[in-house]
């Protein structure tokens, strides 16, 4: 029983860390219509930043300042935000799908750096011994899992409440107005590039935080954790849950993570060991088909965006 409970707690912890990345993507795509295909790149920057800041000094990689975890997470958000500001400044004024190509290229290039700049990142072996939150409880598994889960629930709730406030505020209205009709919004004196850049940077900071949280909970990161498949998972979470809706983003994250880990355990139970790596690729095919099916059959997702109407019409 306690084994199941601590598994459920760990599942929730990881699912919600994806949820924070999905909330970030929802701000970028759901509210502002910005097409980011480099989610993995921003999460990667966050994960490595927190690893450098919080891990103990090691000869295998740079950093190792052994600072407390909150510094790591703040640094992760700042580093990803900075990345987004640079990428955004170059591409946000161009056509929407140029942003898609550029963010994709940035993520691929960052992954290459993580893989090859061994002195900085530990290369293909990654960085291990990243301190976990509540390490003092680690000899009591259930309390340890519960404390970690409570932490990520608190962070997610904070991000959720903040984004709900933001999207309802005049700032959020401007974003949606720009998404729907840029010319009309610009004619009302709203500077499209400024608002878009703000949304892009803020969303990327959340992705960096998600990457940092995962680094901390797993205690280990490697370049392979941040392949384009990561980006794709977050996108499927958002589209399945319902883009434009923060609650939808979280629902999508939990549902997709459940499907993903569930199919993973099913594969390891049912498939012979020598076929497991092949069967794993079949899971990716399945998640691609789920996305296509949702896009075609239920483009608004499970929850969907709330219609925004004038108060006098409600």
């Amino acid at each position: 029983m306690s084994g199941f409970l601590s598994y459920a707690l760990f599942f929730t912890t990881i699912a919600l860390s994806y949820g924070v990345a999905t909330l970030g993507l929802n701000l970028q795509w759901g509210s502002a219509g910005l097409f980011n295909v480099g989610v993995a790149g921003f999460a990667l920057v966050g994960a490595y930043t927190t690893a450098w800041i919080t891990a103990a000094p090691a000869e295998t990689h740079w950093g190792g300042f052994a600072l407390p975890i909150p510094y790591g997470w703040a640094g992760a958000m700042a580093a990803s935000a900075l990345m987004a500001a640079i990428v955004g400044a170059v591409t946000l004024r161009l056509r929407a799908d140029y942003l898609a190509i550029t963010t994709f290229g940035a993520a691929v290039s960052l992954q290459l750096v993580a893989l090859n700049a061994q002195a900085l990142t530990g290369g293909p072996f990654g960085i291990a011994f990243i301190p976990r939150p509540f390490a003092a409880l680690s000899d009591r598994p259930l309390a340890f899992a519960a404390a970690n889960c409570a932490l990520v629930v608190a962070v997610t709730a904070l991000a959720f409440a903040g984004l709900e406030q933001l999207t309802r505020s005049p700032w959020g209205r401007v974003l949606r107005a720009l998404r729907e009709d840029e010319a009309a919004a610009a004619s009302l004196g709203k500077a499209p590039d400024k608002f878009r850049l703000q949304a892009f940077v803020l969303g990327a900071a959340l992705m960096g935080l998600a990457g940092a949280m995962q680094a901390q909970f797993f205690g280990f990161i490697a370049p392979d954790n941040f392949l384009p498949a990561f980006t794709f998972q977050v996108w499927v979470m958002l589209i399945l849950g319902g883009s434009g809706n923060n609650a939808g983003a979280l629902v999508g994250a939990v549902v997709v993570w459940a499907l993903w880990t569930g199919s993973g355990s099913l594969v390891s139970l049912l498939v012979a060991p020598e076929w497991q790596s092949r069967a794993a690729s079949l899971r990716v095919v399945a998640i691609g088909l789920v996305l296509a099916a949702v896009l075609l059959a239920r483009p608004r997702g499970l929850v969907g965006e709330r219609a925004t109407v004038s108060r006098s019409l409600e």
Partner: protein
Amino acid sequence: MIAQILVDGVTSGAMIALGAIGVTLTYGLLRFANFSHGEFATFGAYAALVIAGALGIALGPGETLGDLTFGWHLVAALPGAVVLTALLAVVLDWLLFERLRRHGNAIVLVIASFGASLALRSALEFGFGPQPYYYTREIAMTVRLGGGMRATLDQIVVLVVALLLMAATHLMLTYTALGRALRATSENPDLARLAGIDVERIVRVTWLLGGGMAAAAGVFLGVTVQVRPTMGFELLLPLFAAAILGGIGSVPGAMVGGLVIGIAEAAAVPIAGAQYRAAVAFVVMLAMLLLRPRGLFGVRAA
């Protein structure tokens, strides 16, 4: 040294150029960046592998052609792979992209193509496994070209065939009625429809052409490097870079862009090391987007 960079760059650039033709055509016509285009090259390479293998079983292992590493089996498999991949592109459009186009939002197509890319690649990995394949175990003969340049005979043949395919595509687009209709539709679909052009047919031709050329690029990549599930995906960034460099919608631009990217990649290897090769296309593309977003030959503002 510099001459050798040129030889290597032009050969890999010709393959990038072939793939970029499809990217720029579908981008220009349907207004979306197709992330699954790299997988057309992968699919073509595996299709040729299967066809050549089947021919080998049916007719017995063939002789290699002169000093080349491959024989008639692979030569015969090339058109088969091109046709199969062209059909795959049309079927994918019919199953997924056409339906989404009707819903309106063009940008949703991009994420759908990203999904299609991962699904196709994983399906190939499921079928063939992650290990690389080679069309042959023969050792490629190297030829001295003078001036300190060397190339394998395979490279030279592949380069010549790729250039012929590009020339044929260019002539078709410039001088035939179909090519004119295709360019007109890319310029302005509504006006083209008014002029009596069957736009649906043009869309199909675009996918056939783009898919077929990507398949040829995949087979050539298989001949000169190897066949593996990620080969097309790794080609994707260079393809986009070539299309943007040349100007979206411009086929001659994509060809020139492909060659430039190929040479830039080869030139960067001695400086930055082979492991950062894939990032070169990204850097060139970023510079182009900053300096001249509409590309070398593009007319449409970015």
